[in-house]
């Protein structure tokens, strides 16, 4: 590539880590909330409410 390849790789690497981190945080949060909601089975805990 070039003398500056390290800067380019670092920029793309950091972006990938941050984006994957955001996705993982949201997915893990969703699973945690759904597990907690499952403790209330009789109160409409369906997370896919049809209008």
């Amino acid at each position, binding site marked *: 590539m070039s003398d500056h390849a390290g800067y380019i790789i670092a*920029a793309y690497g950091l972006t990938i880590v941050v984006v994957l981190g955001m996705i993982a945080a949201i997915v893990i949060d969703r699973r945690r909330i759904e597990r907690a909601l499952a403790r209330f089975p009789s109160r409409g805990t369906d997370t896919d409410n049809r*209008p």
Partner: protein
Amino acid sequence: MLWFANPANFLWLANRLIPWLAGISAAVLAVGLYLAFFVAPADYQQGETVRIMFIHVPAAWISMFCYGLMALAALGTLVWRHPLADAAQQAAAPLGAAFTFICLVTGSLWGKPMWGTWWVWDARLTSVLVLFIIYLGLIALWRTIEEPALAGRAAAILTLVGCVNLPIIKFSVDWWNTLHQPASVFRLGGPTIHPTMLWPLLIMALGATLLFLTLHLMATRNEILRRRLRRMSILAVQESRAAPRAEGARG
């Protein structure tokens, strides 16, 4: 629009939209990355380092777009006191902070080989750093105040006050003598970038916008469910406290 503003309808629509949006985002970003690395030429001055711009510029765009979206949601919270507006605003703040962080660090990684320094206290860089601090402040505010409605109103006011920073970021390169280059895409005379670089940049910006919208829908869905969980937990505690009293009254 009003139908969409109902949290139950929002959940129903979000569950159907998210897989499609995620797929389209991944496809657009894949095309954008291919164009950025294999089609766009090296810049005559920046050389290969120009490829950092294909993530730096979309991240900068999203950092401001996200704040604009939060400002609209803040109006929805303060004017109509709509719970979905508050949830949408709260869900957007960490995403905005993450994209602003990407913008700042990739800018720094570009600045070192091009300007010879990681950082300068120039108006554009400093105003974007202020935006990042505002995002962190908003996240802290939501975590500090336990009552969601009160936290939502306080955060909405702070968000609207922070809006003053958006035109400062945009026009800082025109108002002050900065090291950061002036606008080269969104300007009155049209873009100054050659189409071989402009198109990959626009496609990457579109991909980043779709990715942000996907993540925002997912995070807002989480926020609505979290609030539902909170209401149910409070109700369960109230019922468990009321039950012994009812037993005692009967006995």
